């Protein structure tokens, strides 16, 4: 007797899809709790943790932002292997503004986000006409080569980097600022991607030639997506500059390219929430594994392979399915 697995939407999901969602608290809770849960956790968790794990939470948020930035690009059909480009650009912009001109962090952060995003977009402009892995190849190369450029030209402190940035006034401001930005990016860009604008972006991923056929200039939309993603990544970089009070060549390191991809792949590519979830899992995990040092990157690599081959949907989509549907075994009809 052969059996197959049948998936059926839960009754509460069907009920809460329509205007009936407002008919009872239960339905409203069903709809809103997945959205409120991360916000609630981000608000309360810092209060419960010690200083060390608060710093880890900063990394979680920073890598969450980088993963979101990766996912926005991925949903537009641009697979970036070099998130470190955005991160490093933002970090250097903030570092230069603060170090040479003494501008306050509250002004350098937004400025560096915009400037970093713009510079990365300009650097990637020649590549924009490439698709698929051609784009990936160039993004992989760019940050690694920029490191050499800084080394060779000795600009911005060369190999020594710039230090002595102004830190943000307190750890609480740091935490709630970065988590505010993370939440805003998560929900804001999720909404953006479901709007008409986001539809065009996703269309470019699915079939760019038919989007061109519809009379839409895909390069202009790709530029916009690149700028948005670049700015998100650059903000993360600028923020880290002020937290570490240092900017140098390590900001272009491979870590900042790999971990966001790993986070997005583990969490579930194609959804910003998945990317954030992945960062929330991988970054604390890597802190726990800090003792094994360089082996961490080996684990990221292995994670990438296992998830992409065995669980390509990622954790978020799996959880989402369990939340909305139940499964049962039924007999296969002859």
């Amino acid at each position: 007797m052969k059996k197959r697995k049948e998936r059926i939407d839960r009754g509460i999901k069907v009920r809460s899809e329509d205007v009936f969602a407002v008919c009872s608290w239960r339905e409203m809770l069903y709809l809103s709790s997945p959205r409120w849960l991360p916000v609630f956790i981000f608000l309360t968790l810092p209060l419960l943790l010690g200083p060390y794990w608060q710093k880890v939470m900063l990394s979680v948020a920073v890598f969450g932002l980088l993963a979101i930035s990766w996912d926005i690009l991925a949903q537009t059909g641009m697979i970036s292997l070099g998130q470190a480009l955005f991160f490093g650009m933002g970090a250097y912009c903030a570092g230069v503004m603060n170090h040479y001109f003494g501008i306050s962090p509250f002004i350098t952060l937004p400025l560096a986000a915009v400037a970093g995003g713009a510079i990365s977009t300009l650097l990637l402009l020649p590549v924009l006409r490439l698709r698929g892995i051609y784009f990936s190849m160039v993004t992989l190369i760019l940050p690694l080569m920029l490191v050499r450029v800084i080394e060779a030209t000795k600009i911005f402190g060369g190999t020594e980097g710039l230090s002595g940035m102004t830190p943000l006034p307190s750890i609480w401001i740091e935490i709630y600022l970065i988590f505010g930005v993370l939440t805003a990016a998560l929900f804001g860009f999720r909404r953006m991607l479901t709007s008409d604008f986001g539809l065009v972006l996703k269309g470019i991923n699915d079939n760019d030639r038919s989007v061109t056929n519809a009379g839409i200039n895909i390069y202009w939309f790709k530029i916009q997506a690149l700028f948005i993603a670049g700015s998100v990544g650059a903000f993360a970089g600028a923020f880290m500059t002020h937290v570490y009070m240092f900017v140098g060549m390590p900001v272009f390191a491979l870590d900042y390219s790999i971990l966001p991809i790993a986070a997005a792949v583990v969490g579930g590519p194609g959804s910003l929430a998945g990317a954030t979830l992945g960062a929330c899992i991988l970054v604390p995990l890597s802190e726990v594994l800090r003792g094994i040092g360089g082996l961490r990157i080996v684990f990221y690599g292995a994670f990438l392979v296992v998830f992409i081959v065995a669980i390509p949907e990622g954790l978020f989509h799996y959880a989402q399915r369990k939340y909305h549907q139940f499964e049962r075994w039924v007999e296969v009809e002859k």
Partner: protein
Amino acid sequence: MLAGTAIYAIINSVILALMAIGFNLTFGISGVANFAYGAFYVLSAYATWMMINLLGFSYPVSVLLSILITALLGAAMYRFVLMRVRGQALSEVIATFGIGLAVLELFRYFGFVGFEYNLPVFADYSFFIGGAFVDMQRLLIVAIGVVLVLGLWVFTHHTSLGLAFRGIAQDERTALTFGINPDKIAMLAVAMGAGLAAVAATVIIPLGTISPEEGYDVLIKALAVCIIGGLGSTGGVILASFVIGFAERFTDSYIGSHWTMIVSLAAILIVLAVKPSGFFGKQKELEERI
């Protein structure tokens, strides 16, 4: 000075071409961008080193064995990982990148770094040509590079397996109707690419030392050459490696060694801005790149 620089530029170009040709072969035939390429390069060098120094095999035996092992590992990677995600470019890239990363960082973790990790040169004497000393190893690299390129050309144009390779590259489904198994050929292509990486490592590593960094370096250089030349075109790869090779060597001699990377970077960006498909990347321009 000029003649010497030119000679070293030619050698540098051949080295670049050797590094890129395996990557290019795999991509051109199977469409798999093997981001674990640098890992295979380093892996084969370490394998040779271990066989010579730990197991006490003779040099030719260890070289042949390590080339074989690397090719087998390439085939295994295709069979057990890539075949499951075939055709999804994103997944292929991430999977091979993950594998490459894991292998390279594993070597770094176990501390395989230092001057003692080196391969022997074939012959240890040098010539005086055109105002510069050129050692035998570098001349041999040029010879092997030329032989390899010619051999590959003969292989892909005059043997049935090579023709099957090109058939898959042109149209997988039509090739299928002629009884060519695309999965088998693609597996062979990945294996051959890995094997070529091993050959490149065998001849190039003696000039320096083996280190995980070398893996990233080779991957970057192979990518740069392939992007400029136009992926999947052997002529483009050779031309591109000569462009980059000469540019690097001449900036090295006349401006400063730190600037070589900047020249390659500028070359990539300019070529892509002017001609997004690379020098000879015409074949699949419309479908894949733009």
